[in-house]
């Protein structure tokens, strides 16, 4: 009957891994990869709820999430290429001049 | 045991084993087929030394691949270097799982599909598998740690991303026309007749989409004239430069496996799959074992025809330049397919996706694109975009004076 908990745990764990990766890594590309890991966690959660409530709306949400992921990837990679061309490095620390 | 064998699962397992085995042989013979066709087109004999008419040549080739020294250069990224041919090989073969080979079979009263799996989303499954295909090329090229391989990988990435779009749109057109994404359903709905004799194959409704899907299938399989990723003259073989022996063989075989998958896919989408008109055995009602065999033979024959055309194209058309390749995809195929998609959507709205209107739309779009191209749309505009520099010596000397 209750099969939601493992899926929620998986989703939370994937999301948490993504958060940690986002904070820990210094490579711009890997930072954005970490956000994609967070997206995976959310997608798993949405699909799990869709199944739990026997409703396709959760899956529809997940599809829209995919659209957002694609938008984010397109823009983020464009930005990363731009930043890479400016400083010739992918280090996020190279862009910390605004820090007090 | 007998119950298992007559169930859908049993048939699927047996079919999967048979197909994987048969495809390896078929792929090996594709190489023989290609060499023969190349030879005939160039007024030669082709392989004729191993066995009668060279029929055992693939076995000799395979033995050679196995016996050669398998070199892993020291500068490569070893895990990915070994992973890449495996990926490309596996991806090339799992596409066969969703192809409907022979309709339904009445097996001791059980009706089973002659298909390894019949998912709701067969069409998308094949699209997804094709999307995975690029990884083998990209990782192979990158892991080789060689600049030419690397260029090959970069080119392959850009090319595959670009040609996936018109391919996806062509598939969407079929899905819209048929109102289905299950491959077996698509085949079944092509088994009717127009005017009592003309088979309701999609190619008669959307010939333009058919041609474009064929072109993108060539590009996805990295076939000439789209084999930019392995352009020998520029890139010393491209992404598989550093590979040898069986690893190279896997790349080689995967290309042909891709061709077979693509051909089967196009045959199912546009040529009615296992359906052949006017022959009772290849109609959906026929479920005897010999009907199944006949259907498989029909599909295989269609695949062979496609393979022949692919090889014929390879030995005719020279390779594109990279900017021409990109121009063709983004400024040629994508607008045309999008226009077709819009037209199909309108027809679906009016409830007539499978009428002569579809053909009319194809004709109009073909004519418009031809008129656009003829009216001076740039084909090789790259040189003209560059600033004109008078590079003659007197001009140069005059500038210094």
């Amino acid at each position, binding site marked *: 009957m209750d*099969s939601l*908990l493992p*899926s*929620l*745990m998986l989703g*939370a764990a*994937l999301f*948490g*891994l*993504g958060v*940690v990766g*986002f*904070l*820990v*890594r210094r*490579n711009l*590309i*890997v930072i954005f*990869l970490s956000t*994609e*890991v967070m997206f*995976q966690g959310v*997608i*798993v959660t949405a*699909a799990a709820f869709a199944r739990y*409530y*026997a*409703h*396709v*709306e959760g*899956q529809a949400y*997940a*599809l829209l999430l*995919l659209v957002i992921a694609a*938008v*984010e990837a*397109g*823009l983020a990679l*464009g930005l*990363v290429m*731009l930043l890479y061309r400016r400083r010739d490095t*992918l280090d996020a*620390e190279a862009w910390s001049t605004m820090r007090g | 045991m007998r119950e298992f064998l007559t169930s859908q699962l049993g048939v699927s397992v047996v079919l999967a084993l048979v197909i994987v085995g048969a495809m390896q042989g078929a792929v090996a013979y594709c190489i023989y087929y290609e060499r023969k066709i190349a030879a005939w087109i160039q007024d030669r004999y082709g392989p004729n030394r191993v066995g009668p008419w060279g029929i055992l040549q693939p076995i000799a080739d395979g033995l050679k691949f196995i016996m050669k020294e398998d070199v892993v250069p020291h500068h490569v990224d070893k895990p*990915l270097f070994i992973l890449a041919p495996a990926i490309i090989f596996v991806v090339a073969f799992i596409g066969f799982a969703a192809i409907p080979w022979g309709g339904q079979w009445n097996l001791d009263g059980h009706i089973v599909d002659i298909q390894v799996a019949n998912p709701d989303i067969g069409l998308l499954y094949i699209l*997804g598998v094709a*999307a995975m295909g690029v*990884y083998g090329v*990209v*990782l192979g090229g*990158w892991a080789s740690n060689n600049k030419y391989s690397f260029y090959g990988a*970069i080119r392959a990435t850009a090319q595959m*991303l670009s040609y*996936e779009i018109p391919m996806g749109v062509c598939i969407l057109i079929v899905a819209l026309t048929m109102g*289905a994404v*299950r491959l077996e*359903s698509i085949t079944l*709905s092509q088994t009717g007749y127009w005017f009592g004799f003309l088979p309701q194959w999609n190619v008669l409704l959307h010939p333009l989409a058919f041609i474009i899907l064929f072109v993108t299938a060539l590009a996805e399989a990295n076939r000439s004239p789209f084999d930019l990723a392995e352009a020998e003259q520029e890139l010393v073989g491209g992404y598989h430069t550093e590979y040898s022996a069986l690893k190279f063989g896997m790349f080689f075989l995967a290309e042909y496996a891709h061709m077979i998958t693509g051909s089967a896919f196009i045959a199912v989408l546009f040529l009615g799959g296992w359906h052949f008109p006017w022959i009772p055995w290849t109609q959906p009602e026929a479920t005897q074992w010999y009907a199944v065999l006949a259907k498989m033979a029909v599909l295989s024959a269609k695949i062979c025809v496609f393979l022949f055309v692919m090889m014929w194209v390879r030995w005719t058309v020279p390779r594109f330049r990279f900017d021409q390749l990109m121009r063709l995809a983004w400024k040629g195929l994508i607008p045309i397919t999008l226009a077709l998609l819009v037209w199909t959507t309108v027809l679906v709205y009016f409830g007539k996706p499978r009428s002569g209107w579809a053909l009319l739309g194809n004709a109009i779009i073909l004519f418009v694109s031809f008129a656009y191209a003829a009216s001076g749309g740039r084909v090789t505009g790259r040189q003209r975009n560059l600033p004109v*520099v008078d590079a003659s010596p007197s001009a*140069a000397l005059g500038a*210094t004076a």
Partner: protein
Amino acid sequence: MTAAAPYPIYAAFALGAFALYFLAPRAQRRRAVTTAGWLAAIAAGSVALFASQQAGPHTGILFYCFAVVALLAAVRVITHPRPVYSAVYFVVVVLAVAAILITYEAEFLAVALVIIYAGAILVTYLFVIMLAQQPGAPVYDRRAREPFLAVIAGFLLTGLVAGQVTAQRSGLPPPSKPEARTASTRLPPNPTASGNTAAIGVALMTRYPVALEIGGVLLLISMVGAVALSRKRIPIEGVPPPAPTLGQIGKEVEPF
């Protein structure tokens, strides 16, 4: 299970955080540290498995297999010192998540995930990684930034939220009956219907057309933005290009 505080889940997430702290890339990799990290990760997984077993009948062995694959691959995504491997492991995450979606009867979503993520997004990532590649492993890939604080901030907080949500399961509406589920998510099988795909399509087009349109507009905006960001200076027709620097011949270049 009562609404008591879900200590096993807290424990699992804390262990996971511990594991991640050890596994984060650091200046000198010690085998012992890595081993301790993996051991802690395995312990975290076991505790989590145990906790979810307590919650009720499991969803099936396939779910657990693919969940383990997804988690391990995700750990490697964020800890591997080389971006290409991160991307490849992320492909594994995507495939595992797609497999899990199939066990949820969301075939269309699964295939869409593979096509969009593995087929398009990740290839673009690989493309950029290759273009912006630096020789060797640069220092910013080999050293984590504040792993301890990051682990606490990210993982433990998520664990707390997850734990609270699961502890208050009584607050969630009950799941619907399996037969209702089948009726609403799947259309009756007939030759032209496409099951789950059609259901999603109907939901998107009838209930969320605005969201769908906004998604399309966003994609267009992102495309324009990406083109604008990555463009190069190209001479425009009609506008004369900058004069060629022929004067340099004779100064820097020998005249013939």
